[in-house]
């Protein structure tokens, strides 16, 4: 009770409980908004949107205040825990918070980018019949995501982790009357469950050794446990499974491109900037668990590197404006995961932050294009839009340059940090990462040239295209500003931990890393910067490889095959067992036996009174025989 009084009763300006109660408001504000929208205001669309936006803006303001309090005045983390439940003597689960620099930065990213996207949604979702439902889901998502960020123990994090999966499902399938959207939502949820199951096993295994779920206690206890090499690797790998699912790493990456069926702001918020970054955030939160194990960290780094390169190759052959960005997101997430695996959670978080800015911007600009062209998403039906939509075009270009890592934009700083790290630790991954960086510049260059420059390919759509209203361009400009200057605040990496040891890399390496994206753009320009560009020259040059990347390496087909034949066979076996052993033999046998017994015993009911008298005497005689004589 005392907690609640102190939360709401005292000052939340600068008092001793100030930062704490702000965190609870940051977390629960969006939930309250979601509840009110669902229960009360679903008919008043304007009010619903206002509530949702007000909630996230409040969260943003409070997060910013916490961040500034920490950076400027050094006000430290005050742990605040509500005891939630105890099971037996050993399992204690809290509902607590953690407000270390890592969480503060993530809070800022989620609420900051989230605010821009909430406002943008006002314009994008205008006139949609499910307007209120959309904002309720968005607020629910914000709540769940913030829950992951401030969770101070694994169980709490896992609960919010699943809540995030739920809100993602709701938002991907937002236009559920469209079968593809409903299917995509289901796919995302199921694929995520595969990863989450591994994570749950990891959490339980860790608990069975350490006896606590709390991050701080675990960090203190785990080094003293002397776990065997195998156990440590297994725990690390299992927990990494959660990140593989949520952050869409190979081999569970298949859900993310399909998730683009959701509204574009949702893609920007959930499937680019925040939720998919939750996996990386979780890895950073428990990096002390993974890094001591060489096997686990190599696994993490390799999966990240493979994802980065593979997704980048797929992206060069996609034709959907959002799907290219989706594969780009996969690739960038691969970078972050690789950075964690190589022992650089700081670099991973730095890139996560920058990526949130420019990738959200890319998606929002793409959304602006999609709205202008009345839900056309094929890039080969666009072209020359820069004349009609200057703000959208230029913000997209800025974000594209930032994504490719052109100095001095944000992506340059964060991506180079990761590349330097890879150069120091693992040369194979370094080469893969550089190749991915080249491809990144190439595919995003392709998208820019085809969509915004050249001649319009669909004259009718082009004539009707127009720049989006201020409510959409405003967030674009805000995010463009962040994409440009985000990396200049070089304290962001330092803020998270001990200052990065700036090793002196050779000038050649630095120049090479700057030249890589430029080279990518040059190649893209050579192919697509001309009247009537097409994929034909690249297709001819790559031959069979093109078929493979165009079909995403046949992952979906492979999984469909596995589900159809392997899982299908097992399911058929279970069905047979259920149908014949359990149903026919077990339940059917029991009922048939009872029936048979009944029919037999019924023969005694003759209705003949002397017969009954005989049986009674016989029975009594037998009883007496057994009782008296034996």
């Amino acid at each position, binding site marked *: 009770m005392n907690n609640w009084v102190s939360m709401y009763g005292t000052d939340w300006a600068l008092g001793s409980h100030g930062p704490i109660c702000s965190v609870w408001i940051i977390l629960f504000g969006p939930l309250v908004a979601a509840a009110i929208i669902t229960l009360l205001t679903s008919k008043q669309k304007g009010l619903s949107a206002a509530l949702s936006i007000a909630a996230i803006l409040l969260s943003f303001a409070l997060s910013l205040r916490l961040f500034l309090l920490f950076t400027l005045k050094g006000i430290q983390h005050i742990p605040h825990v509500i005891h939630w439940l105890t099971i037996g003597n050993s399992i204690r689960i809290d509902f607590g918070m953690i407000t270390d620099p890592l969480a503060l930065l993530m809070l800022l990213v989620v609420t900051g980018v989230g605010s821009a996207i909430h406002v943008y949604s006002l314009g994008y979702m205008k006139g949609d019949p499910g307007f209120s439902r959309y904002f309720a889901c968005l607020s629910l998502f914000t709540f769940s995501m913030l829950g992951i960020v401030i969770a101070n123990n694994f169980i709490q994090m896992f609960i919010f982790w699943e809540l995030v999966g739920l809100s993602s499902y709701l938002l991907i399938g937002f236009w559920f009357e469209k079968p593809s959207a409903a299917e995509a939502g289901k796919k995302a949820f199921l694929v995520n469950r595969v990863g989450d199951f591994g994570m749950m096993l990891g959490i339980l295994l860790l608990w069975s050794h350490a006896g606590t779920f709390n991050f701080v206690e675990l960090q203190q206890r785990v080094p003293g446990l002397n776990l065997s090499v195998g156990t440590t690797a297994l725990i690390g790998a299992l927990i990494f499974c959660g990140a593989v699912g949520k952050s869409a790493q190979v081999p569970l990456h298949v859900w993310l491109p399909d998730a683009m069926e959701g509204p574009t702001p949702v893609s920007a918020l959930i499937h680019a900037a925040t939720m998919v970054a939750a996996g990386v955030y979780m890895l950073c939160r428990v990096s002390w668990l993974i890094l001591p194990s060489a096997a686990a960290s190599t696994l993490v780094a390799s999966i990240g590197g493979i994802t980065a390169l593979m997704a980048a190759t797929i992206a060069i052959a996609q034709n959907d404006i959002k799907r290219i960005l989706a594969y780009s997101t996969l690739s960038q997430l691969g970078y972050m995961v690789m950075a964690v695996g190589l022992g650089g959670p700081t670099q991973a978080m730095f890139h996560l932050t920058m990526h949130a800015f420019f990738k959200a911007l890319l998606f929002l600009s793409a959304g602006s294009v999609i709205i202008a062209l009345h839900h056309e998403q094929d890039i080969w039906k666009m072209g020359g839009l820069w004349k009609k939509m200057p703000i959208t075009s230029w913000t997209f270009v800025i974000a594209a340059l930032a994504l490719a890592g052109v100095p001095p934009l944000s992506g340059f700083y964060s991506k180079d940090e990761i590349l330097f790290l890879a150069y120091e630790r693992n040369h194979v991954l370094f080469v893969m990462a550089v190749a991915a960086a080249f491809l990144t510049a190439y595919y995003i260059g392709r998208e820019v040239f085809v969509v915004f420059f050249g001649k319009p390919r669909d004259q009718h759509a082009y004539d009707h295209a127009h720049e989006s209203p201020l409510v959409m361009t405003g967030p674009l400009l805000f995010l463009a500003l962040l994409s440009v200057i985000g990396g200049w605040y070089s304290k962001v990496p330092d803020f998270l931990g001990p200052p990065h040891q700036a090793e002196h890399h050779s000038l050649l390496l630095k120049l090479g890393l700057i030249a890589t994206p430029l080279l990518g753009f040059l190649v893209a320009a050579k192919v697509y910067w001309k009247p009537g560009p097409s994929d034909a020259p690249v297709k001819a040059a790559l031959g069979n490889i093109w078929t493979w990347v165009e079909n995403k390496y046949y992952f979906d087909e492979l999984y469909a095959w596995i589900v159809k034949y392997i899982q299908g066979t097992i399911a058929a076996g279970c069905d047979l067992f259920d149908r014949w052993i359990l149903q026919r033999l077990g339940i059917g046998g029991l009922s048939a036996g009872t029936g048979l017994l009944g029919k037999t015993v*019924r023969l005694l*009911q*003759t*209705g*003949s009174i*002397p017969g009954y*008298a005989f049986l009674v*005497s016989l029975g009594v005689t037998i009883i007496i025989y057994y009782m008296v004589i034996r």
Partner: protein
Amino acid sequence: MITLNHYLFVSGLLFALGIAGVIIRRNALVIYMALEMNLNAANLALIAFSKFNKIVDGQILVFFVIAIAAAEVAVGLAIIVALYRRKQSVSVDELKTMRL
């Protein structure tokens, strides 16, 4: 010398005759008489025990049995009369409706 066993033997014989009567005969009235024989076989055993063990309890119990047998006959004969009115017969072969 007549011992307890002699009494009990007669009692058992009487009881067996009663049971046999109940099972074999078809006339409800005769079955009734056979049943009375069963009760009196039990009474004989009780009195024999009472006499040889010098405890009066058995004789008291016999009075109860006689009283209850009288009541039972009243009810039973009423049932048989009712039965006769319905079926125009007192043969138990007519009473086969008590089955599934």
